[in-house]
C-alpha cells in the first residue's frame, strides 16, 4: 500500500478516536514544546554572550600579568605583577598585526563630587583605549594625546558614575576629587551595559595613565595591556606575536614559563559560554525526558489500539494484507500522531519562547532548524515507540485475530 494511502488511513483512525488521539498527542506536544523553548533559551543565551563579547572591544587582545600555565598560582614574587608601560610601548612599536595598544592601570579610590561619594574602579589609559573598546563620549569629549603626554588631571566618567554623582545634570565641566586630587570632568561615556560575567562596564572612571601613575597609583606596574588586532582574521597572529614580543620584552629564556597571559575575546567568553552550555544541556535533557514520556504515551495508546483492533487486523490479513502492511500501518499511525504532536509542539514552543523571553527578559532565539529538528525528532520518537505495538500487530495469527471478539 502506498504511503499516502497509509497516512490517510492513519488520519482516519485518529479522527475516529479524537479525544484519545488528542490526549496522546498532548504528551508529545508538551515534550516538543519544552525542547523548543529550552533550545531557544540556550541559543538566546549564546548569542547574548556573543554580543557582549563583541561589545567588549574591536578584535581585542588582553595581556595580563601572571601566568595561567601554572594554574593561576604565580611563582616567585618577582614574577608576579610584571607588566610595565614599557611593555605596552614595545608591543605598540614592534607588533605588525596589532594596530593599537594601551596600558590599563587600575586603582580604587573614593570619588567625591556632585551629589556625594562613590566608589568605582579608576583606570589610567591611553587615548587608544577608546578605539580599542569602541567607546565614545555621550557628552563632552574624550581626553587627548596632549593631555596624556602632559599628565592633565582630566577624567571621562562611565555612565553609571555620572548618573550616581550628577543624577539630573550633565557633569561635563564639573570638578571631581579622587583621593583628594582635583580632576576636571571632560566627558561622559556611552552606556555599554554588563559584561558576560555580569559586571557593570559603566561603573568606571577613566583618566590618562600618566596622570594615574603619578598622582594616584604611584606604581610602576600596570594591570593589563589592551590591544587591537588589525582585523578579525589577524587575531590569532596578533596573539602569537604579542606572546613572542612579551617574552622578548621580559627577557625570558627558552626554558622559562611565561609570566603573563595573552587572551582574545573568545577565550574570555569561554567560561561564560561553558556554563551556559551546561545549563542548556541540562534543561534540554529534562525537556527530552518529557518527550520520551510522550513517546511512551504513544506506545501505550498504540498497544491499546492494536488489541482493540485485533479483529480488524484479522480482516485485513484475510483480504491480502502482508505482515509488512500491518506493521507499516501502525508505525505510520504512530508517526502521524507524533508528527502532529511535533508540529503543534513547535508552534507552542515558539509561543512559549516568546513568553519566556518576555517574562524573564532573556533573549530567546528560535532557529528555523529547530522546527525541522523538533518535528523530525518527534517523528523518530513515534517510529521508535510505535514499532513494538506495530510488530505485535503484524505477528498476530490471522485466524486467531478473526475469531477475536
Amino acid at each position, binding site marked *: 500500500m502506498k504511503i499516502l494511502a497509509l497516512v490517510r488511513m492513519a488520519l482516519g483512525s485518529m479522527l475516529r478516536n479524537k479525544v484519545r488521539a488528542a490526549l496522546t498527542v498532548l504528551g508529545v506536544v508538551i515534550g516538543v514544546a519544552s525542547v523548543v523553548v529550552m533550545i531557544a533559551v540556550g541559543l538566546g543565551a549564546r548569542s547574548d554572550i556573543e554580543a557582549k563579547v563583541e561589545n567588549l572591544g574591536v578584535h581585542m587582545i588582553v595581556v595580563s600579568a601572571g601566568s595561567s600555565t601554572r594554574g593561576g598560582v604565580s611563582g616567585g614574587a618577582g614574577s608576579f605583577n610584571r607588566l610595565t608601560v614599557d611593555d605596552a610601548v614595545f608591543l605598540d612599536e614592534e607588533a605588525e598585526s596589532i594596530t593599537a595598544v594601551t596600558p590599563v592601570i587600575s586603582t580604587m579610590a573614593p570619588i567625591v563630587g556632585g551629589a556625594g561619594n562613590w566608589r568605582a574602579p579608576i583606570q589610567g589609559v591611553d587615548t587608544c583605549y577608546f578605539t580599542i573598546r569602541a567607546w565614545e563620549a555621550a557628552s563632552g569629549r574624550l581626553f587627548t594625546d596632549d593631555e596624556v603626554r602632559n599628565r592633565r588631571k582630566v577624567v571621562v566618567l562611565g555612565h553609571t558614575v555620572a548618573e550616581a554623582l550628577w543624577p539630573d545634570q550633565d557633569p561635563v565641566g564639573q570638578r571631581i576629587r579622587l583621593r583628594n586630587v582635583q580632576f576636571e570632568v571632560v566627558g561622559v561615556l556611552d552606556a555599554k551595559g554588563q559584561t558576560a560575567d555580569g559586571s557593570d562596564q559603566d561603573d568606571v572612571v577613566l583618566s590618562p595613565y600618566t596622570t594615574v601613575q603619578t598622582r594616584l597609583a604611584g606604581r610602576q606596574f600596570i594591570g593589563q595591556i589592551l590591544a587591537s588586532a588589525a582585523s578579525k582574521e589577524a587575531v590569532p597572529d596578533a596573539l602569537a606575536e604579542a606572546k613572542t614580543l612579551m617574552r622578548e620584552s621580559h627577557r625570558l629564556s627558552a626554558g622559562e614559563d611565561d609570566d603573563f597571559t595573552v587572551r582574545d575575546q573568545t577565550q574570555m567568553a569561554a567560561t561564560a559560554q561553558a556554563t551556559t552550555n551546561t545549563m542548556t544541556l541540562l534543561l534540554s535533557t529534562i525537556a527530552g525526558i518529557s518527550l520520551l514520556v510522550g513517546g511512551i504515551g504513544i506506545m501505550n495508546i498504540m498497544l491499546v489500539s492494536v488489541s482493540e483492533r485485533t479483529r480488524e487486523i*484479522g480482516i485485513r490479513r484475510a483480504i491480502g*494484507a*502482508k505482515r509488512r502492511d500491518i506493521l507499516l500501518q501502525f508505525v505510520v499511525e504512530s508517526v502521524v500522531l507524533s508528527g502532529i504532536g511535533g508540529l503543534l509542539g513547535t508552534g507552542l514552543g515558539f509561543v512559549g519562547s516568546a513568553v519566556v523571553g518576555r517574562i524573564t527578559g532573556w533573549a530567546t532565539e528560535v532557529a528555523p532548524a529547530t522546527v525541522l529538528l523538533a518535528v523530525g525528532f518527534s517523528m523518530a520518537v513515534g517510529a521508535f515507540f510505535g514499532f513494538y505495538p506495530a510488530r505485535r500487530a503484524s505477528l498476530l495469527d490471522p485466524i486467531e485475530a478473526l475469531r477475536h471478539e
Partner: protein
Amino acid sequence: MARPLIEVEGVSRAFHVGESSVLALRHVDLRVDEGEMIAVMGASGSGKSTLMNILGCLDRPTTGRYRLSGIAVETLDDDALAELRNHVLGFVFQGFNLIPRTTAVENVTLPLLYAHVPPREAREQAIVALRRVGLGDRLEHQPNEMSGGQQQRVAIARALVTNPRVVLADEPTGNLDSRTTVEVMALFQDLNHLGMTLVIVTHEDDVARYCRRVLMLRDGRILSDHPAAHGSARDDLARMPAEEDA
C-alpha cells in the same frame, strides 16, 4: 471441460489444547472445479470452518497436500499466501467482518490497495463492485448505518472486487433473516452463472438447496458428496411477498 481449482489430498488438521489434541479434519480429499457452487454442511464442530481456513490459505494442514489453482500452497511463505488471499480468493464471513467506522466504499477499496492499485482507480473499481451488489446508493455509509443484508453485500463486493477465482463464504447467511438469505443466495447464483466458483459453508438445507453440489462433514471426515437441487433463488424471491429492502 472442467479444470480443477481446488485439489485437497489427504488433509488432516490437528489442534493441540494442553495435553490433548483434537483432530478437526481427518484425511480429507476434495476436488472443486472451476465454475462450481458447492455447499459444505455438517453439525457444529464437524470441521467446516477448519476446512475453509485451509482452503482460504489462512491456515495450513497438519498433513496432506493442497493445490489452489495449480499452486502447491504448502511451499509458499507468509507473503505469498497473503497475495493468494488477495488475488485468487475472496472471503465472506458470518459476522460480515467489515472494518468499523469505515465507509462501504473504503472497505471495498482495501483489497485493491493491498494489491497496489492506485487509490483513484481502486475507488472506481470499488464503486463498480458495490453497484454490482445493488449498493450504488450506499457508498459512503458506514457499517453501523446499514442493515445486516446490506453489510453482507458490502462484504461480498469486497470479496469480488479483486476478481478472485473462488469466493469462500463461511455461514454467510447465519446472521440474516430468511428473505435476506435468499437475496444473498440469489447474488451468489448470479455470480456463479457468470463463472465464479463458490464454496459456501452452511448448516441450513434452505441455503444448500441453491448450490449445485453438497458436501457433508462429520467429525472431520467427508460423509457424503452429491449434487444438489440448484433451485433458482431469483424465482423464489419473486414468489416471496414484497418487502422493504432489508
